[in-house]
């Protein structure tokens, strides 16, 4: 085979916060690390995270990792695994301080320590007063973190494959993952990267929905690669809608606005969150606030000529607070809306934001799959961290500020575990040709144009000839928004499954006309859409099956949470769209279990 081949101890796919944190750990331990990213690392979507990361430093209010853990379990609507949550919340303070030592320019308090702001779902003393737990660099925390991590990686001499697109994981018969087939976007040249250990850190799939806060690169490539490698995806029905995306456009307006004292009003000027969450009002968890906004609009209290949004008010705040703590979103409002939030409220609407589900992992970021007897087992040498993973620390609903935390805590955990693993696994395993062939086939489909090698007598071929990748992507995003949005019902979801399946079928016969090698973005978009479609099907299939309302998954036809039947994780397999389930890990590492309770804010 005439394909370049390179060998590394560890392959990291994705150069966002999780991938870069792991790579840094590994490079510093002198493992050879290849980071493959389809964009230059600082373009990764971590860069867009605004509000901050949670850690019980207690710089502003009294705080404790155990309270943080309670809030996270409650926020997850009791679907989070409590051992992983304990691990994350305990590790948080140390991990933030480490980032500060790396150079992250956190905002500061008068005494010189890291600035922390209140965020939704944060409490002191297990549900008491509001805590201020979110460590922030103004409203550009993700940018500050990502650039710092990249800078540290340059210093540590991590090997980067910038603008390389990963096509598929390579594996042997036993299911061990041995590397990846990728291609250099600039030249189109293929490369096989062999590795003793692989970390998938490719982020979420926000591009599933038409209006979303995500970058165009967020197409869940690693999730789909895992599916195709026979690994199930966990809890894909839980997709977070952020309460405050710019109405109709989708740009994110950080929860930090409400943390700094902003609040939502409806057409009557009413601060409606007082009715939905009397205690914490606008700082309830995201699922609660998003549903409240959707209900206000549905009941006719939306703002504007079409009554289709609510307003986020911060014009009562001191202009200096906005300039100092929220400069980025002020910029966004002025650029995209022509509104200065110092003077005018901002139209917002719940907007697709975060993939709670993902590749099933444990607290070491190892990928785990069910085994025959009902337990689960780690796939040797395979790891996942960040938004593409499901540890599960977010369960049915992620708390704001826990995502930047998740990526660094589990990126670091993966790095640590990999270093240990490499000590006892010193050799590369043989790479079977069949696996490479399979991955090449996926690529060949778009290299020559599907129509040319599909039989021309296919009954749909005339119809399919006219469908472009871009049209199908639009259709998928519309279907997901329409059939799998904030509120869901059996009939609509069932139609959604059919509609996505239909798009998947059509995609097989869709074509691209650009078959050039150099920086062919049409081909990349086709490969990305193939990934997205699988994830759309995973999401809507899992949502149809879950007959309860929990966290971000709201079923109009099953309005209650049903712990007896449904306090369990869904696992979706590509083959036959099969679903199975596994129990929630309710036993923490050292403390007592938080048993499920009614969730009020």
């Amino acid at each position: 085979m005439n394909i370049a081949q390179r060998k590394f101890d560890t392959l990291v796919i994705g150069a966002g916060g999780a991938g870069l944190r792991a790579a840094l750990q590994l490079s510093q331990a002198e493992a050879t690390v290849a980071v493959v990213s389809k964009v230059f690392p600082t373009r990764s979507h971590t860069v867009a995270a605004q509000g901050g990361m949670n850690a019980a430093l207690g710089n502003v209010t009294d705080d404790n990792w155990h309270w943080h853990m309670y809030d996270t379990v409650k926020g997850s609507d009791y679907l989070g695994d409590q051992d992983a949550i304990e691990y994350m919340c305990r590790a948080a303070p140390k991990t933030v301080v480490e980032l500060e030592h790396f150079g992250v320019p956190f905002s500061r308090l008068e005494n010189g320590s890291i600035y922390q702001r209140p965020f939704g779902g944060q409490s002191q003393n297990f549900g008491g007063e509001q805590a201020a737990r979110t460590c922030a660099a103004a409203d550009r925390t993700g940018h500050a973190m990502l650039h710092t991590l990249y800078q540290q990686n340059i210093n540590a001499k991590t090997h980067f494959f910038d603008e390389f697109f990963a096509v598929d994981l390579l594996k042997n018969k036993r299911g061990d993952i041995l590397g990846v087939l990728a291609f250099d976007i600039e030249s189109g040249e293929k490369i096989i990267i062999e590795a003793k250990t692989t970390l998938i850190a490719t982020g979420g799939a926000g591009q599933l929905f038409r209006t979303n806060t995500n970058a165009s690169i967020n197409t869940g490539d690693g999730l789909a690669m895992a599916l195709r490698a026979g690994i199930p995806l966990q809890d894909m029905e839980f997709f977070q809608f952020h309460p405050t995306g710019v109405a109709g456009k989708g740009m994110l307006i950080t929860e930090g606005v409400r943390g700094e004292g902003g609040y939502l009003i409806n057409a009557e000027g009413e601060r409606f969150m007082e009715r939905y969450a009397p205690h914490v009002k606008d700082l309830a968890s995201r699922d609660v606030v998003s549903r409240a906004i959707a209900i206000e609009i549905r009941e006719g209290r939306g703002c504007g000529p079409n009554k289709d949004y609510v307003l986020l008010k911060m014009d009562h705040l001191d202009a200096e607070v906005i300039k100092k703590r929220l400069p980025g979103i002020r910029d966004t409002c002025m650029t995209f809306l022509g509104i200065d939030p110092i003077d005018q409220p901002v139209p917002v609407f719940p907007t697709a934001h975060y993939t709670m589900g993902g590749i099933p992992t444990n607290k070491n970021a190892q990928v785990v799959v069910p085994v025959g007897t009902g337990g689960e087992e780690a796939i040797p040498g395979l790891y996942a961290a960040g938004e593409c993973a499901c540890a599960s620390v977010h369960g049915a609903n992620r708390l704001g500020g826990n995502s930047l935390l998740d990526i660094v805590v589990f990126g670091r955990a993966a790095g640590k575990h990999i270093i240990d693993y490499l000590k006892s696994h010193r050799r590369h395993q043989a790479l079977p040709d069949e696996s490479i062939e399979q991955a090449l086939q996926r690529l060949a489909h778009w290299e020559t144009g599907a129509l040319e090698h599909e039989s021309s007598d296919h009954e749909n071929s005339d119809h399919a000839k006219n469908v472009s990748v871009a049209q199908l992507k639009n259709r998928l995003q519309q279907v997901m928004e329409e059939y799998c949005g904030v509120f869901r019902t059996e009939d609509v979801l069932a139609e959604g499954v059919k509609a996505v399946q239909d798009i998947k079928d059509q995609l097989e016969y869709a074509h691209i006309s650009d078959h050039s090698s150099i920086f062919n973005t049409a081909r990349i978009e086709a490969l990305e859409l193939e990934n997205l479609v699988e994830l759309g099907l995973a999401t809507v299939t899992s949502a149809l099956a879950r007959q309860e309302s929990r966290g971000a998954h709201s079923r109009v036809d099953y309005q209650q949470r049903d712990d007896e039947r449904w306090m369990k994780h869904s696992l979706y397999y590509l083959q036959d769209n099969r679903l199975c389930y596994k129990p929630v890990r309710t036993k923490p590492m050292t403390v007592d279990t938080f048993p499920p309770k009614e969730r009020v804010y």
Partner: protein
Amino acid sequence: MRFSIYRYNPETDPRPYMQEYTLVDPAPGMMLRDALLRIKNEQDESLSFRHSCGEGVCGSDGMNINGKNGLACVTPISELTQPVIIRPLPGLPVIRDLVIDMSQFFTQYRAVKPWLIVKDPIPEVEFKQSPEERDKLDGLYECILCACCSTSCPSFWWNPDKFRGPAALLQAWRFLADSRDQATEERLQALDGPYKLFRCHSIMSCVDACPKHLNPTKAIGNIKKLMLKSML
């Protein structure tokens, strides 16, 4: 709305050319990136350009728009005169269409050691930094590495291999200005000589081009001042 876009695919085109496109019914408030995506999706999928976040934070879609460098995703088309002339960022090799080879730009960035250097033992807690000390990093750490500044700088066009360029020098100052950093001497020494820093002639094209409203010229001035001070 009419567009004239630089096209070049080295596999098939003997030389670059400008291609005309017309976009019917552009949406009100549309940004240039969305207009380009519509052209790509509806008329010509072979048109290549980088883009990602769509809100001016990832730094992917720097391009030369009616003669001025900027980010397509935060440039409203309503402000542009027609035909909108779009070219790749100037001064660096073109890979294809609007996609440039940024290697030299990143080499210069890496050359200023853009990471925090601390020599004292690391404490258990965070390094303390007063709000006033932290304020000095505002206007510096926000750089998104889009290269709009460096590719608008005539000094960088002439000496992209020797002159660090405004983006890298802004980062050099970001670490010099950081109260936690302990490598001032080395950083200054590394910038000495006729090219790395001193090729800046304060033309200020970089300031004009920066989509994040940062001021590399001022940062470069600050480095020069500090250098002078350390020599006295």
